[in-house]
């Protein structure tokens, strides 16, 4: 299409290299650490030459952590499963609640729609700490403390505003004409929403869902305060490697690798929507 001068090519290449270096170096380093023992990690000066070991991963997967102080039980796989379940369920619920609402705000302008939309978004403003203490007390009273249902509900604070706000923009950007034509042809509102609006906004929904998933995955404080040990996510679980005989950096690193993997796989899978499909309508390629 457009011509690019060689100099610009070089500069662009250089820029992208620097960007990749800055953002990927720590990831690569963490990846390398996950195959090392604490002894090689804590070497001076740091070095990339080491004998790789799988002990960190076996420790995480079998749940037995060998340290100077003996064998420790760890529940990392359980934590991983909790993260997976909590994030997936929260995003699913968030989409179920958020997408229709986003459609209402984006497409069917109605009296007070902006106020309601803003109110919903404003839940994002409340610092989580502010609501946590009263929340634990109320959850205790209504029996939601230490339940997945309660947690998924609270996770809506993170997930819902994000979905609502991003998806709403997509609904607004879909030309109304297509839906209109379909309606005129005698189809019900619901079938228009399902057959026309949803597929058109699909990429936006996927992107919002993925971002919401990441934010839910990274959450820390809700499960910690509201649930018992068997419902804790990886973010809390990985801290178990800070032991009396020192931080087990290799295991923390392996834990990070294992906790990035599912999200990364999801992102790669959704790549089509996320990057390719995020652009709407007008562009032809």
């Amino acid at each position: 299409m457009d011509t690019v001068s060689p100099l610009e090519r070089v500069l662009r290449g250089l820029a992208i290299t620097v960007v990749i270096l800055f953002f990927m170096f720590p990831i690569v380093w963490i990846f390398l650490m996950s195959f090392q023992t604490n002894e090689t990690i804590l070497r001076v000066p740091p070095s990339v030459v080491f004998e790789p070991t799988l002990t960190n991963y076996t420790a995480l997967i079998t749940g037995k952590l060998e340290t100077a102080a003996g064998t420790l039980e760890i529940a990392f796989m359980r934590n991983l499963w909790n993260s997976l379940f909590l994030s997936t369920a929260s995003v699913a619920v968030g989409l179920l609640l958020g997408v229709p609402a986003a459609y209402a705000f984006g497409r069917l302008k109605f009296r007070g729609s902006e106020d309601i939309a803003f109110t919903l978004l404003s839940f994002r403003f409340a610092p989580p700490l502010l609501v946590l203490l009263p929340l634990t007390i109320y959850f205790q009273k209504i029996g939601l403390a230490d339940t997945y249902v309660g947690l998924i509900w609270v996770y809506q604070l993170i997930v819902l505003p994000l979905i609502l706000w991003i998806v709403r923009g997509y609904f607004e950007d879909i030309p109304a004409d297509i839906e209109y034509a379909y309606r005129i042809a005698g189809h019900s509102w619901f079938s228009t929403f399902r057959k026309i609006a949803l597929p058109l906004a699909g990429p936006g929904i996927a992107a919002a869902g993925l971002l919401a998933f990441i934010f839910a995955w990274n959450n820390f404080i809700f499960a910690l305060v509201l649930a018992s040990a068997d419902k804790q996510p990886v973010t809390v679980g990985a801290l178990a490697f800070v032991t009396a005989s020192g931080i087990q950096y290799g295991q923390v690193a392996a834990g990070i690798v294992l906790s990035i993997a599912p999200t990364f796989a999801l992102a790669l899978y959704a790549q089509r929507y996320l990057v390719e499909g995020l652009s709407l309508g007008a562009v032809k390629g």
Partner: protein
Amino acid sequence: MYDKEKTLVDAYMSGSLSRRGLIKSLGAMGVTAATAGVLVNAAATRALAQNGFDWKKHAGTTVKLLLNKHPYTDAMIANLENFKELTGMDVQYDVFPEDVYFDKVTAALSSGSSEYDAFMTGAYMTWTYGPAGWVEDLNEWITDASKTNPDYNWDDMLEGVRASCAWNGRPGGQLGSDDAKQWCIPWGYEQNNLTYNAAMLDKAGVGVPGNLDELIDAAAAAQAANDGIYGVGVRGSRSWATIHPGFLSGYANFGQKDLNVSDDGMLSAAMNTDVSKDYHAKWVKMIQDSGAPDWSTHTWYQVGTDLGAGKSAMIFDADILGYFMNGAGNAMEGQLAYAPFAPNPAADAPTPNIWIWSLAMSTFSQQKDAAWYFLQWASGPEHALFGATQMDFVNPVRKSVWADSGFRDRLSGSYPGYVDMHDKSAPGAKIHFTAQPLFFDLTTEWAASLQKMVAGEVPVDEGLDQLAESVNRQLKEAGLG
């Protein structure tokens, strides 16, 4: 299941077989040392079952514990089957990593949750939990012969440690006074003393320092003589945890107090005396000259990791931190040694401030008597001996364990100087802080001031005057000063 083993162990218990002989015979049968320990304790537990106490009173009850990820916890869990067998009770537990453990405790207790019957805590925390009405005064159970088994031997606990867990709830009230409430029971504790890398000190040609000035010199000399290390590790993060270990132990050794208590029970800052200013100045200088370059982010695990990895020559910190850094998986495994430390040249003995991992009972528990059964077993002499000899349950809080020759020999074998250090400093070991509910507010600010002094942002005297002023203001605001 373990019939043959059981016979052997019973022979050992009755005295017809030596400990070494027992372990050897068990080893021949393919039983590991840890399992052997559990078996020995099973025998001790069987003996316990015969002391006339109704252990089965709460059979069928389930108690739930909130625990910190710690070797003490691991030792308890390893031995838990014996308790279940003894009492017919079931025990559930939630273990949380230390970084978030106390947040979890605060969240659970402040919401009045009845989920947990008992939990691990430190004595400082009970200065909040007690007045808040979250924990029970355990004297009620300890003194009740119908609820506590005759072999519990409460007096076996080290006095300083036991007293440090008891407070009458009055701000400034003496710890362990007659009207004190036993908010928690000591389980394991840490003294703050020196752990040093003998090779590094040798290389610098300096001996083990005997007071603060010598420590400062030795740290500087070791740092100069060894490549890529720093002299002395102490904590420095912006937290109460920076004040309570080595720093306060030394501070108390110079006869200094954190707060003054007037006759009418009012509190005021005491950290801006001349002696205190002098001590602070030396401490700050020591960190500037030979402390960790990233001291201000050092919590206990950086202090420990550096020592274990051979990045520092000494630490003036928890003795058990030095203990763990001498174990497998550390570059300096087996190369560390221990010494009691009295920073004040005029002092007769060390006065370590102590951290006590303790057990407390939640006020919101629905089955307190059953929870007490667990507490008296977990803090009882049998489990303490099991933990100390078979697992890493150091430092035990019971005199009987410290008198056990098996335990002493084991320690002295791999941890040179450890037993001697403990014996010398135990008499002066207690909590040297003034008990009051603003403990965390004031010590956090103290740590922040120390950070500013070390960074050279404020001179020591001025910093201490400002700190004292702020402390006094906060005490007044809270109605304590």
